[in-house]
């Protein structure tokens, strides 16, 4: 019973981290209409920005928001230089290849700047553990969980309550209709892309201390993000959160009770089962034309 509770808690914490990655991915898919294969690279950039700031002597807690800011700036430049010019109104294939190449270039750049070896990001929360009802959780994981819940909650409230957020929702539902209502669709798309990569950067900065950072860390994050997003339904934010928690808990249970080394294959089994039996995902809208 203790073991099961501990496993469930670990899964929830893991799922919270996944949710931040996946919400960014699903936001970009819903608003900008592209599957962002460069998402993993922005995740890695968040980790590296955090490392860079922490190695300058900055406290980890101050480094996280600054790292997100750096990722936001890089994301905005990318959007302005590449995404905006090549993708809008285009097929998914062009966007797929461009974002994939962007991710490749960014990973190669990270290797050239920082080297291929894993680096450790120190965190003041790293060593201590907390105890709730007999279950041990490291402080860093508690921090990840709290941050994720706060950020996702803030995003949800923003989308629901603010005018800008409602505009974002409108563009996701019907971009052309939104344009006819006088919403500045290109600006909303830029905003959504930057918000999405910011979420990736935040996840990278949050997860950096519990796993070391290395240039290709983004690939596994990207794959997890895609499994979560497909499971929840592409473009659906509640779906991404539900999918993240499900995959987090499923991974933790599988690791504890079945096999650690086969765990990476579990997400794909779930995804293929989803696509076979409920192609729109758990909470996705059934679309007439899925690209």
């Amino acid at each position, binding site marked *: 019973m203790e073991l099961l509770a501990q496993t469930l808690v670990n899964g929830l914490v893991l799922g919270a981290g996944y949710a931040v990655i996946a919400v960014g991915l699903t936001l970009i898919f819903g608003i900008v209409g592209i*599957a962002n294969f460069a998402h993993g690279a922005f995740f890695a950039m968040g980790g590296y920005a955090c490392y860079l700031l922490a190695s300058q002597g900055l406290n980890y807690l101050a480094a996280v928001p600054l790292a997100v800011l750096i990722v936001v700036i890089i994301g905005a430049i990318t959007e302005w230089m590449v995404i905006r010019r090549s993708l809008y109104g285009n*097929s998914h294939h062009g966007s797929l290849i461009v974002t*994939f190449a962007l991710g490749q*270039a960014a990973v190669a750049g990270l290797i050239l700047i920082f080297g291929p070896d894993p680096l450790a990001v120190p965190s003041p929360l790293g060593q201590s553990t907390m105890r709730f009802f007999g279950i041990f959780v490291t402080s860093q994981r508690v921090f990840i969980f709290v941050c994720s819940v706060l950020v996702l909650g803030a995003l949800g409230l923003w989308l629901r309550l603010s005018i800008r957020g409602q505009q974002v929702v409108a563009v996701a539902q019907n971009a052309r209709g939104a344009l006819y209502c006088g919403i500045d669709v290109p600006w909303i798309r830029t905003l959504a892309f930057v918000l999405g990569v910011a979420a990736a950067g935040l996840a990278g900065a949050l997860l950096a201390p519990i796993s070391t950072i290395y240039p290709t860390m983004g690939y596994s994050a990207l794959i997890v993000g895609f499994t979560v997003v497909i499971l929840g339904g592409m473009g659906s934010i509640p779906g991404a959160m539900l999918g993240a928690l499900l995959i987090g808990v499923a991974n933790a249970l599988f690791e504890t009770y079945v096999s650690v080394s086969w765990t990476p294959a579990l*997400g794909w089994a779930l995804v293929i089962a989803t*696509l076979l039996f409920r192609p729109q995902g758990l909470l996705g809208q059934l679309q007439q034309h899925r690209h």
Partner: protein
Amino acid sequence: MATHFGTMIDRKLVAVSDKNRSGRTAREASYAICSLFVIAVCGYTFTDPFVVTLAGYTCAFALFALSINIILGGVGEVPLGQCLFFGLGAYGAAIGMGKLGLPFDVSVLIALVLSVVLAAIIGVITLRLTGAYFSIVSWGLTGVAMVAATNLDEITGGPLGLFGFPPIEIGPLQLSDPPTYFAVTATILLVAILFLVALRRSPFGAAMDSVRQNPHLARSVGVDVARVRLKAFMLSAPFAALAGALAVPYTQIVTPEVFSVANTVDGLLMVLLGGAQLVIGPVIGAAVFTLIPQAMNLDPNIRILLFSSVIILIMMFAPGGLHQVGVALRDRFGGKTDDDRSR
């Protein structure tokens, strides 16, 4: 929704007269004979074993790029999981030789058959999906393959992989001898190109074109879209598997890393560099992709950075690849506008 890898395809719909066609056949036969001659000459002139082996490996990898282009240029999907079959070919050759004691050619043949069967099974599931969904799921399946190759120690040798093969030979041809290796891979590549040229001109090639350009229209005029896509996928698999098997004499080791997405990316970059609409586009891309870094002695990461940037620029400004740039230049400076070479 429609996919525009090369808009110049439309111009090729102009009917080719019979006279033109016979002239074309003769011209292509002469191309083929010239290439054979060049292969023979290269095999004898270049003696530096490293360069010759690298050239042979490039030919093997160009074969992989051709396989990717059957999907990308043929039915218009981005096959991020094509290295699944590449790895299957490599592991098939390695397991056949190292574990079962079969000769190289027999193990490769078994691997080819297996790759077609696997493609049929995977294709039935994944080809229902299109666009990003197809790419993501096929990429994920390579991840599953990598996990499987790492964990099934008894068959695959685990994370360390398989190595230490007996001398690799096809009949009397010793593939460990660099000039022979180059000649064999180059000849296989040439045969593959001829086959694909014939395929593109066949009714099936036309069906693939129609599926890529507009699946709804294709369906409405009686093309069985799902069937065409599945056939193209099953056709692409043995090319990739053969490429994987032919890469083994160069690499001399097969690790779970063959399933890494980096392999697919290399092939994809080659296809996009050369242009997806030209049958030999991937081969041009493969040559550029290997030769320039080799000549300039580039670090592999600088190479990826450079070529990825080039791909972004190409996708932004010339989605047909170097081929489209060439055609545009030729049209501009008043060359003939016979654009039928790729077909």
